[in-house]
């Protein structure tokens, strides 16, 4: 009895697998055939597509594409290639026209479907092709978001790329939102809107957005905000102070070096480290005695940054050689010795 049951179970398992194997084999064969045909059509369309994009012939490509099989797949593939190869082409009128004409319908349908992966891919393409007509649909989806998962994060990025600043407002609902998401959103807005949003964010008490705005000033090299950043060095929030130091370090510029002085004596080692780094990259010679003291700091990273800072000065090598022999602290001597020979910028 048991033997028969087990035999039946195993036979049904084998039968199920055989059916699945047959299905997958046929699917693979069909996919391979489709892919071959798509690649063939893609290659046959490349010339007329190029002529269309550079304005030589406005009709041939449209005539071909109107009647072709796999139209939306091919247009998506061609446009993806174009925006990848040509810098700034996301904003091209032709990309916008073609994507709105041939992709907005299929994309609207995909966004309403229950396939997570396809929806996320589509959000990336909407961003690449700057499809403004889909903004209302995306905003509606954003209103329904309950969790800041991968899809919701991409939705916010896509909306920011379409200059929808309400996407940033929505982030306030999530105090744990990653800083990267704020930075990605700021960087996608056009320049004028970015500056407006940064000003708004700096006036906020909401730490995540304020800290992200300060970080973005450094990333986007927004020098006009330097006085704001220097002001934030007086903040009572450690996170904001450290972020401000990081930003000044990235900018390699500050109006008032005096505000750096207290950070050489900070209780927080990250602040001491950034003070050393800033003094180095901006070659503030007046801080050399402070850097000498930091060479014997108890934290390895501070000693490392202080020695690296000396390597930026004109007489840095001389000073490092001197410290490697004469500094009273053994760790300081070791670190100075290392920086005489170590090449800075040891990174890919």
């Amino acid at each position, binding site marked *: 009895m048991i*033997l028969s049951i087990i035999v039946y179970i195993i036979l049904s398992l084998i039968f199920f697998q055989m059916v699945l194997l047959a299905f997958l084999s046929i699917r693979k064969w069909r996919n391979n055939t489709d892919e071959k045909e798509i690649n063939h059509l893609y290659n046959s369309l490349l010339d007329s597509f190029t002529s269309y994009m550079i304005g030589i012939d406005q009709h041939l490509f449209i005539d071909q594409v109107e009647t072709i099989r796999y139209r939306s797949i091919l247009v998506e593939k061609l446009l993806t290639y174009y925006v990848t190869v040509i810098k700034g082409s996301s904003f091209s009128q032709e990309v916008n026209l073609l994507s709105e004409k041939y992709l907005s319908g299929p994309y609207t349908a995909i966004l309403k479907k229950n396939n997570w992966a396809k929806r996320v*891919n589509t959000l990336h393409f909407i961003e690449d092709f700057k499809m403004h007509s889909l903004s209302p649909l995306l905003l509606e989806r954003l209103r329904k978001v309950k969790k800041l998962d991968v899809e919701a994060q991409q939705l916010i990025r896509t909306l920011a790329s379409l200059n929808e600043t309400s996407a940033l407002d929505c982030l306030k609902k999530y105090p744990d939102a990653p800083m990267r998401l704020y930075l990605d959103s700021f960087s996608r807005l056009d320049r004028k809107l970015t500056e407006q949003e940064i000003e708004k964010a700096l006036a906020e008490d909401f730490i995540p957005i304020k800290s992200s705005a300060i970080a973005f000033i450094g990333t986007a090299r927004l020098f006009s905000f330097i006085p704001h950043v220097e002001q934030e060095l007086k903040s009572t929030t450690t996170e904001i102070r450290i972020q401000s130091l990081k930003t000044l370090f990235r900018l390699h510029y500050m109006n008032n070096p005096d505000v750096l002085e207290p950070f050489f004596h900070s209780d927080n080692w990250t602040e001491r480290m950034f003070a050393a780094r800033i003094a180095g990259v901006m070659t503030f010679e007046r801080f050399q005695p402070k850097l000498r003291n930091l060479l014997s700091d108890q934290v390895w990273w501070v000693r490392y940054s202080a020695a690296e800072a000396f390597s930026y000065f004109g007489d840095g090598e001389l000073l490092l050689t001197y410290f490697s022999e004469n500094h009273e602290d053994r760790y300081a001597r070791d*670190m100075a010795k290392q920086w005489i020979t170590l090449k800075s910028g040891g990174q890919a």
Partner: protein
Amino acid sequence: MDSGLSFFLLLSWLVIAYMVFSSLSYVILFLIALRKVWYEGQIDKRESVKNLAVNEHTFPVSVLVPAYNEEVGVVSTVRSLLALEYPQFEIIVIDDGSKDATAEKMIQEFQMKEVPFALRKYLETEQVLASYQSDLFPYIRLIKKANGGKADALNAGINLSTYPYFCAIDGDSILEQDALLKSMKPIIDSNGEVIVTGGSVRIANGSVISRSKVEQIILPRSPVVLMQIIEYFRAFLIGRIGFSRMNILLIVSGAFGLFNKERVIQAGGYNKKTVGEDMELVVRLHRILQEEKSNERIEYIPDPVCWTEAPDSLSVLRSQRIRWQRGLTETLFLHKKMLFNPTYRSIGLLSMPYFLFVELLGAVFELAGYFIIVGGLFFSLVDPKIAGIMFLVTISYGSLISALAVLLEELTLGKYPNVSDLITLYLWALSETFWYRPLMIIWRVEGLFATVRKKQHWGDMKRKGISS
């Protein structure tokens, strides 16, 4: 005689129950993994990581390459790493007292110069003899140290590394160009809550790899390698993804893993006293997370990030499997406190018992199963019907589950391009019970015994090289 027969009867039912239970656990893991692998297979990877590639806020990574007698492959491995797409990384090769010209090859090829280095001693290691920096690529470093084993070499690399995350790879692994980006994505998306990511490792034998890129995926001809491909599907696509979904994954492959350095240092680094240092570290990190009641996670991504050369001879495969089994035994023994301990929640109650009964003791049960089949059919030790049931259950446990893994791969990722590849893999999977699995069982049991002979070594794989 009767008592002997009833003992075998009891043993038979015990083994049958065990195999049915284990098969069911695989099917459950398969169902848990299915959705994740299905969706990951459809995601456009280029689109999803392209932001990270150009963003200066993407965390920098130190790539650690421990090497022992790797003069044949070390230069091509490092050259392949130069092609990685990542905003900021450094490469640290750790020559663990090689007896060949591993260090000399590196020094010559990358024009390296000795630099004094104020080494931090986060982790105790054997003596570091010298450190070098490349003149051509300053982000390539080399440490020469006294021999101390792979774990010790990795610990020395951690001490020298400057970035907050490190990626440990094997000396002859080839990383996909976007491997670091794909592995870093879960860490960034989770705002640092993911502290370790592992990626699927694929077998490169047979495929065309050029300049760190898999140009063409071709199935190898060797049955031994084909069976390992199927085994990897079973382990990675069913086991690891399923466990990762429940945050109880205990293994991140030594061939590729991305770790939060601070967390690893807090945990004490790699354990030098086990040959399964990769698994032991992950179990220790889980233990710490559970003890701290932390929300941090260890995650696995189904996408292949790393290609490795699999052994194509039975003797090398045997030594590899004995080493793996030994590593597993040592890890479970070291952390026996966690077994069935509700303090460690699902790690203690689910994954540790799973690894003990399915991965470790499974070989013993299966060996008993084969013994009963042979004994029943040829020596009347048990009723031939019972032997028949055992035979069928063994086939479904071995071959059918592996065949299911092949189908799952095709259903979701479908990395092998031809219909003939799928059918070849499927048919070889069905043959597993009859030749490959018995070999594995014998070697795994050998591995259990090998645990008592405690001698660390690097393994003795003869590299042929997989990249041109």
